[in-house]
């Protein structure tokens, strides 16, 4: 096999989903033994591209050449065998085994089934040691920190002579000092004949680590350049967001209403001292990229995760449990609609009334006709595409499934709705329908908190915007005044908040305080 200059060549790659082209004729090269960064906003197509490389998804068109040869992986195992390893956020190690056992998993040398201590093991351990000598190969992986588990995974990929290691937001869950160590390791991988594809929204990391960077936007390839040729963050940001025209946002009229939710000094394993207010009838957006803490914030308020701090809702302390939150008047549209929001084996009618059964029952007995009527009302109001209330939820499209979850939460008559990634994976038509629904609800006096990693979404409908990065609230701004989207990206990718620039800007609190 001749070693080409480019370890990976992507040519006119296309990926279609029903109703949307997620990857649109993308072409670029990845040079061997470099750290090649991949950036782009949510929905830019990065994750789909990566899924094609890792075998989790099949391409619809175009070519991928690995080491000059046609590459196709039907599943992650095949991808790994062909030389592309991936480090996901869900760690892929067996906690109950030792480091050594994990390194050799699937590749043991055996005599009649007996595990042998061979050179192969020593080689792998030495690879591990060269990356991080403080890890004892005999210790159980469960005793390692997340950062060290990542290193074990990297060591395994290197020792199995992967050509490419894809790292997907690896720094989301590790501390600063561990990040520094990871960077050293990543840089060193170039000397070990490994190419790293590094996906991150933390632009500082791109500048520190990357040799090349590819920017994607709206499914298209925007540019691939050596990092050295990029002047500064702004240039990169401009490439990422281009000339995005946001829909006209109409500022709300009327006097400022009372605060319906007051969050004070909220902290937990992810969140750092967050404080803010939500006012009646307000649509508040929480914007941040992966790992910023959006879902953790929603979960803490809803009472699923523990926290320290105070949450006051409608003037009273909010008890930390979902059923009490719902009783008090908060409803959550969860991040994962299939596994958290819906009862997929039940019908639409089975799903909609769940959070407020009182309204369709008398003395504990369900009023079927009321139930059907209510379901039909919501199907009509939200324009859920179905001919019957009896359609199984699992058979609906993503957009319609999300509408069912919405219906569920709306039926709870909540005064405050929390929407976690409300339009993720939904086609454009359904998206704008959902935005219309949200605006209508706000007009009716409901308060809405949107947690999203899609900037246009936040910009279109939110009255106030809170920016999250790494568990902290970095800045707040009112929509309608001149919003500088570059500045926003700058902040949510870890940039410094210059004080005095904006009203109500929150100071960045360093770690270790």
């Amino acid at each position: 096999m001749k070693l080409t200059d480019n370890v990976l060549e992507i040519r006119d790659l296309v990926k279609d989903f029903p109703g949307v082209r997620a990857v649109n004729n993308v072409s670029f090269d990845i040079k061997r033994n470099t750290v090649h960064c991949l950036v782009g906003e949510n929905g830019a197509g990065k994750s789909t591209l990566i899924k094609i490389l890792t075998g989790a998804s099949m391409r619809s068109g175009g070519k991928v050449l690995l080491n000059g040869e046609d590459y196709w992986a039907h599943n992650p195992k095949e991808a790994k065998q062909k030389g592309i390893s991936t480090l996901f956020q869900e760690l892929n190690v067996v906690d109950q085994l030792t480091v050594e056992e994990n390194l050799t998993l699937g590749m043991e040398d055996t005599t009649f089934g007996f595990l042998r201590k061979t050179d192969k093991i020593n080689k792998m351990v030495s690879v591990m040691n060269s990356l991080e000598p403080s890890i004892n190969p005999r210790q159980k992986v469960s005793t390692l920190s997340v950062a060290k588990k990542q290193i074990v995974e990297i060591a395994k990929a290197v020792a199995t002579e992967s050509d490419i290691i894809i790292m997907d937001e690896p720094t989301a869950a590790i501390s600063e000092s561990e990040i520094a160590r990871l960077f050293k390791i990543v840089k060193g991988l170039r000397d070990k004949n490994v190419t790293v594809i590094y996906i991150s929204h933390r632009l500082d990391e791109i500048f520190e680590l990357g040799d090349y960077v590819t920017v994607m936007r709206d499914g298209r390839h925007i540019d691939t350049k050596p990092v050295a040729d990029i002047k500064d963050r702004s240039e990169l940001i401009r490439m990422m967001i281009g000339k995005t025209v946001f829909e006209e946002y109409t500022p709300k009229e009327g006097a400022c209403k009372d605060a319906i939710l007051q969050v004070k000094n909220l902290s937990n394993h992810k969140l750092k001292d967050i404080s803010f207010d939500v006012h009646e009838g307000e649509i508040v957006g929480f914007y941040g990229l992966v790992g910023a803490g959006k879902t953790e914030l929603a979960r803490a308020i809803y009472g699923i995760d523990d926290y320290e701090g105070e949450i006051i809702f409608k003037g009273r302390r909010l008890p930390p449990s979902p059923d009490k939150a719902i009783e008090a008047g908060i409803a959550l549209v969860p991040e994962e609609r299939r596994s958290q929001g819906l009862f997929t084996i039940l019908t639409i009618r089975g799903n909609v009334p769940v959070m407020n059964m009182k309204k369709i029952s008398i003395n504990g007995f369900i009023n079927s006709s009321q139930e059907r009527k209510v379901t039909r009302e919501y199907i009509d109001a939200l324009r859920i595409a179905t001919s019957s209330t009896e359609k199984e939820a699992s058979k609906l499209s993503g957009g319609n499934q999300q509408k069912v979850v919405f219906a569920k939460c709306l039926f709870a008559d909540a005064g405050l709705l929390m929407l976690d990634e409300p339009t993720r994976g939904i086609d454009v038509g359904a998206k704008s329908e959902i935005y219309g629904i949200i605006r209508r609800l706000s007009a009716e006096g409901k308060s809405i908190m949107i947690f999203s990693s899609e900037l246009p979404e936040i910009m279109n409908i939110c009255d106030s915007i809170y920016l999250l990065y790494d568990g902290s609230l970095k800045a707040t701004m009112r929509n309608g005044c001149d919003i500088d989207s570059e500045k926003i990206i700058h902040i949510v990718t870890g940039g410094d908040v210059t004080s005095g620039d904006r009203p109500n800007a929150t100071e960045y609190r360093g770690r270790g305080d």
Partner: protein
Amino acid sequence: MNVKSGKQESLRAQIDRADAARANIKNLYIYVILVLIVVVFSVVKLGQVEMFGRGHFLSPDSIVNLLRSAVPIMTLSGAFTLLMISGYIDLSVGSAMSLSAVVFAWLILNGFAFLPALLITVILGIAMGYLNGFLVMKLRITPVIATLVTLSIFKGIALLIVPDGLSAIKGSAERIMPAWINDYGRKDVILGLPWAFFVALAVIAVLVIVQKRTIVGKYAAAIGGNRTSAELSGINAVKWVWVLYVVVGLFAAFAGVARASYMSLGDPLSGDGMELDCIIAVLLGGTAFSGGEGSVAKTIIGALIIMCVTTGLMTVIPAFWQTVAKGSVLLFAVVLNHLLVREKVTA
């Protein structure tokens, strides 16, 4: 900064020491329990019997009896542990053992020599394990339900083989059960213990080694610990768990042979409750119910504890206390296991 790191250092040292202490408890508690049980039963009747004398818990007769009755669970629980480590369960082991006992006794009664009879029974055991593996791994029926179904079927077949009117396959006026049937499971070879006991010891030794030093043990832990990771690393989970089911069936057959040999008859109810004993042993031994962790050696100690409790209690309390005692032991083992083992978090 230095002061802070100094404080962090001593905090780290404290945490490490606590971890080490916890690890020590995790490894030693079971020996402590075993010793306690033995002591309690040795002491409890000291007013009436002499220490080490006749009727005492630690008298030679009593110990030999205990070890002889422990042969089936000793043979079986090691393989059971391996299966549990991979995250799967087999509730049919008791019936598989009974069926094996019945078949073995039938073969001996009908003229087969020991080794051929043993061989045939073992093949039956393998077949039973294969069936379980098929239902669970290929047809993907929940292990509990699948093995309850096979429990029913094996028990049924065992009952059907025994002719109507008899309670077991045994010798009669027309056809005598050859006396040498006892040679394996009952006859004194060394120190009063039969061949079956030493075979059980060998089985345990083999399985301990298998768990700690072979690919079977490692893969069982990998599959039980994180099946996705294991499969991503190229491990064929379906194949390996199927193998474990077969191994369990194999040793269930051995256990049945030992029991039939000991009792000189094939009792279709002889294995009843064996799955419960195995579960208690496994729980006491610190195996996680969701898989990934476990120890054959500790399960065996757990099995010994149950045998001591069962036989010891028989000398102290009337027979009708046995069930409630066993139920309490099970719940105790559950609580103990719950405190000791941190179950892996699923989603």
